[in-house]
């Protein structure tokens, strides 16, 4: 569920303003905390930090808004989220404050699966949105 919602948020980041992304992301994260086994705030913090990273990537490195750019954004955003989440859990494990129990190999495999899943989902969302709205033509981003 986290990855599905994260994909939706990434797509929103791609097509909308940051204000329309970060505030909903904060509240979605806090909502997901209610059903998470990790310490409170960890999931939301990882979500916001990875979105910030994706936003910086999109704003300062991407030159156009197209479906390959969206897929790369999705891939980078997912990897960022998984890395940040893993390291925060590692820090919490030192204090004994988390229920994180996956080995590194398991987490790595899950990361690959999530990255593939998110990329496919983003492509589907883009295709549907493009067909319905006709507003997602490839454009070059003006800096």
């Amino acid at each position, binding site marked *: *569920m986290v990855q599905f919602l994260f994909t939706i948020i990434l797509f929103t980041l791609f097509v909308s303003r940051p204000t329309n992304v*970060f505030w909903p992301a904060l509240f979605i994260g806090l909502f*997901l905390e209610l059903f998470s*086994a990790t310490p*409170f*705030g960890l999931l939301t913090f990882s979500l916001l930090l990875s979105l910030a990273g994706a936003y910086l990537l999109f704003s300062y490195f991407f030159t156009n808004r197209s479906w390959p750019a969206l897929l790369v954004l999705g891939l980078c955003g997912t990897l960022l989220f998984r890395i940040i989440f893993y390291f925060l859990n590692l820090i919490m494990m030192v204090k004994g404050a988390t229920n994180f129990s996956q080995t590194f190999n398991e987490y790595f495999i899950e990361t690959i699966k999530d990255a593939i899943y998110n990329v496919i989902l983003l492509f589907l969302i883009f295709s549907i949105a493009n067909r319905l709205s006709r507003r997602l033509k490839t454009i070059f981003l003006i800096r």
Partner: protein
Amino acid sequence: MTARRLFLSISSVFILIFLAHSLGFLSAPENFFRRIILPIAKTIYLIELKTKNFYSGLGNQQNIISENEQCQIKLRETYLDQTELTLSREENKTLRAQAGFIKSEQKKVLAEIIIKTVDGTSNSMIINRGSENGIETGNPVFFENGFLLGRIINVEKNTAIIRLITDNRSKFTASIINQNKTQGLVEGEHGLSIKMKMIPQDENVQVGDIVITSGAEKNIPRGLIIGKVESIQKELYEPFQSANLRSLADLNKVNIVTVLLKQ
């Protein structure tokens, strides 16, 4: 709103909410939202369970699978009866030898599994009972009157999180129902299987032996069925042998569970 201002405002709100949660000010709204979401999450979980059952019984295989499930249920009941009988015999023997022994009944709470934890970092499930029902961290959880499911690791007012026995961090002291009452430690493996470790080399363990909780841990009674020995790893140069166990039921299809409260 500039990006810097946006990040600052979001960070401030996040820190405020985090502090409020840490100080306990948010427990009422959190419980309120959980109460609203729990019925929806429960419905989705039940649909998921039914879908799993549906796909596993498609076509002509459905009758065979249904019959197989009935046989499995009867077999599990037989294992329960067998365990109960063995334990009753032991208990009877002990009670006869000791005068004035008093056995107290542990209180139990019935609960339903609502959802798996969303973060996916552990094999754990959320149930719809919490501290207001007397549940505490460390309480054992079982299903169908005697099969161990896991242990409570986190408690809120009206929900709790169970760590399944197949989780990497799950550990229980266990005993095999055999002549020597072999003791060992049962650990979960990658969310898929269970392994019994620290079995002395000289103990005679057979494939098919039933493994139960040993009762050595506080508040976990003896006799909850963990699984059946499926294979044994015994190397002469190792100080201990180990056994792979198979759970007698699909832990991912459990819906109703019982939580044993502390005495």
